[in-house]
C-alpha cells in the first residue's frame, strides 16, 4: 500500500460537503449572472425594440436566455468543481466509489426539465401569435389583427431584385422607399410579381413570404424613430443577396408631410400603375409581350425561355 492510498474503511475524500458547496456556489453565480443577463445583455439582444413586434421578440429572447443561464452556469460550475476538487491525485490508481444511481435526483431532474420544456412550449405558442401574429405573415385572412382604426396600409411588392411599396391610402402611389410613422399600427400586404421572395424588416421584427398571387398580411407598430433594414429572406435568383434596402420610421407629422409630397411628386407615375390590388397577375406581362409581338414590335416577351432557342441559360 502506498503512502497516498487511503487505508481501507477511510473516506477517499475529505469531510467537505460537495453537494452543498456546488449548490451554494451555483446560487451565488446565478444571483450574479441573472441580473447581468436581463439588465445588461437583454437590451442588446436581437432584434431590438424598434417596434411592438421587435420588443416582444426581444423579451422572448431575454426570457430564453435568462432560463438557459442557470443551466449553463450549473454545467460549467460542476465541470470546474470536478476539475479542481475531484482531480485524481498522482499515483492514485484506486477505483471510485460504486454508484447505483439516486432515484430522488432522477425523478427531480425529469420533473424539472419536463416542467421547463412544457411551460416553454406553452409560452412559445402564445408568443407566436402575440402581438398580432408576432410580425409574421398570416396569409390573406389574418386571425390575429391589430386593433384600432388608424391603421396604415402598406403593400410590399417583391420583384427580382428590388422591393417597392404602395400606399393605398395615398392614392396608391408606389415608391422604392419604405417610410413608416412612429406610433401608428401598420398593416403590410406582402406579395410578389415574379418569383417567391420573403420580406424581412429585421429591426421591426417583421418577416412575411412574398409569393406571386398571394396577399400575405403582417402587422407591426413602430415605436422608435430611425432606420431599419429590409432584406429578402428567400433565395430568389442570382442577385438575391443584393435585394435589400433601408426603411425609415419618421414622426407622425414628418411621415404625413413625406407621404403628401411624394403622392404629388409621383402622381404622373401613379396614373400609369395598375389599380391598387392585393395581388397582381404576372401573366399579364407575357400577354403584353405577345400583344407587342403581334403588333410588329420586337423585344423579348418576358416569357419562359422557349425550346426554340438553341442556347439555354
Amino acid at each position: 500500500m502506498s503512502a497516498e492510498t487511503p487505508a481501507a474503511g477511510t473516506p477517499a475524500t475529505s469531510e467537505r460537503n460537495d453537494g452543498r458547496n456546488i449548490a451554494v456556489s451555483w446560487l451565488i453565480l446565478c444571483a450574479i449572472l441573472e441580473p447581468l443577463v436581463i439588465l445588461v445583455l437583454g437590451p442588446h439582444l436581437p432584434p431590438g425594440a424598434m417596434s411592438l413586434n421587435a420588443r416582444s421578440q426581444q423579451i422572448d429572447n431575454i426570457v430564453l436566455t435568462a432560463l438557459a443561464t442557470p443551466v449553463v452556469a450549473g454545467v460549467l460550475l460542476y465541470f470546474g468543481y470536478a476539475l479542481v476538487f475531484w482531480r485524481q491525485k498522482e499515483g492514485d490508481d484506486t477505483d471510485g466509489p460504486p454508484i447505483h444511481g439516486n432515484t430522488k435526483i432522477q425523478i427531480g431532474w425529469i420533473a424539472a426539465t419536463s416542467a421547463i420544456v412544457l411551460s416553454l412550449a406553452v409560452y412559445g405558442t402564445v408568443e407566436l401569435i402575440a402581438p398580432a401574429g408576432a410580425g409574421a405573415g398570416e396569409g390573406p385572412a389574418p386571425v390575429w389583427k391589430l386593433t384600432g382604426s388608424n391603421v396604415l396600409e402598406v403593400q410590399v411588392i417583391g420583384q427580382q431584385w428590388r422591393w417597392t411599396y404602395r400606399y393605398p391610402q395615398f392614392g396608391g402611389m408606389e415608391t422604392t422607399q419604405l417610410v413608416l410613422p412612429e406610433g401608428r399600427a401598420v398593416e403590410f400586404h406582402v406579395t410578389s410579381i415574379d418569383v417567391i421572395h420573403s420580406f424581412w424588416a429585421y429591426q421591426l421584427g417583421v418577416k412575411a413570404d412574398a409569393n406571386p398571387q398571394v396577399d400575405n398580411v403582417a402587422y407591426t407598430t413602430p415605436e422608435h424613430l430611425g432606420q431599419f433594414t429590409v432584406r429578402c429572406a428567400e433565395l430568389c435568383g442570382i442577385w438575391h443577396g443584393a435585394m435589400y434596402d433601408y426603411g425609415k420610421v419618421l414622426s407622425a407629422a414628418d411621415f404625413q408631410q413625406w407621404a403628401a409630397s411624394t403622392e404629388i411628386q409621383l402622381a404622373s407615375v401613379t396614373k400609369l400603375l395598375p389599380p391598387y390590388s392585393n395581388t397582381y397577375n404576372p401573366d399579364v406581362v407575357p400577354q403584353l409581350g405577345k400583344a407587342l409581338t403581334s403588333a410588329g414590335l420586337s423585344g423579348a416577351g418576358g416569357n419562359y425561355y422557349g425550346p426554340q432557342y438553341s442556347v439555354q441559360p
Partner: protein
Amino acid sequence: MSLPARVTTLLLALVVVVAGAVFVVLHYIGGGPPWENYVPKASGGQVNVIMQTDAQTSVTDHPDWVSYFIQNPQTGAWDHTTLFQVPANTRVNVTIYGFDGATPGRNQLWGAVQGAIGGTSTVTQVDAKGHASPATATSTLSTWNGDVQHTFQIAGLDLNVPIAAANGTLCTSSPCTTQGNPYSINKFSFMTPAQGGIFRWNCEIPCGLAFLYGMGGPMQSLGYMSGEMQVVS
C-alpha cells in the same frame, strides 16, 4: 506496376488536378468582362459615360442574349462589358444608344425616371435613315405600351432611367452602329457619392428570354444586363 510508373501516374494526376484548379480560378473566378476606366477622363467635376443596348450579342456564345456594351474611353471601341469606373463626387453624364425594341415590364414604376439630375432623361429617336426627332425631356415612359426597351438602374443610388425603344427593323449584329439602324439616344446625369464603393446596376425589364419569367439568363449575368459601377474616391 513498377515504381517509376506509379510515380509518373501520381505526377500526372497532380498536374491534371492543379491545371484544373488553375483553369477554374482563371476562367470562372478571375475571368469576366473588362473594366472600363472613365476616371482619367473626368474633368471639371464631370465625366461622360457612353453605352449601347443591343437586341443580341453576336460577339459571344450567347448570340440571342440582349446586352449592354460600353464604349472604351481610351480607344472609342465598343467593349462587351457592363463594368465601369467613375470618380467619386462627380456628375456622370450618361448617353445610352438604345438599339433594341420594346419589351413590356412587370412594374410600371420602372418607366419613371428616378434619381437623375433634373428628374428627366432626354430622348431622341433616330430612324434607319438617320432622321432624328427633336430631343425631348422625358420623366416617364410607359413600360406596357411599347415605349421602353430596358432600364438603367442603380438600386444603391435609387437611380432608374427607362431606355426608349427603337422603332423599325432592328440592328442584327452587335455592337450596333448608327448607320442604317434605328435607335434611341437617351441622355441623363447623376451624381456619384462622395465615398467610394461598388454599386450594382441592372436592367429591371424582364427582357432576358429567360427560363423563369424573364429575369434569368442575360438579366442576371455580368457583361449583359447586369453590371457594376465602381466609384473611385
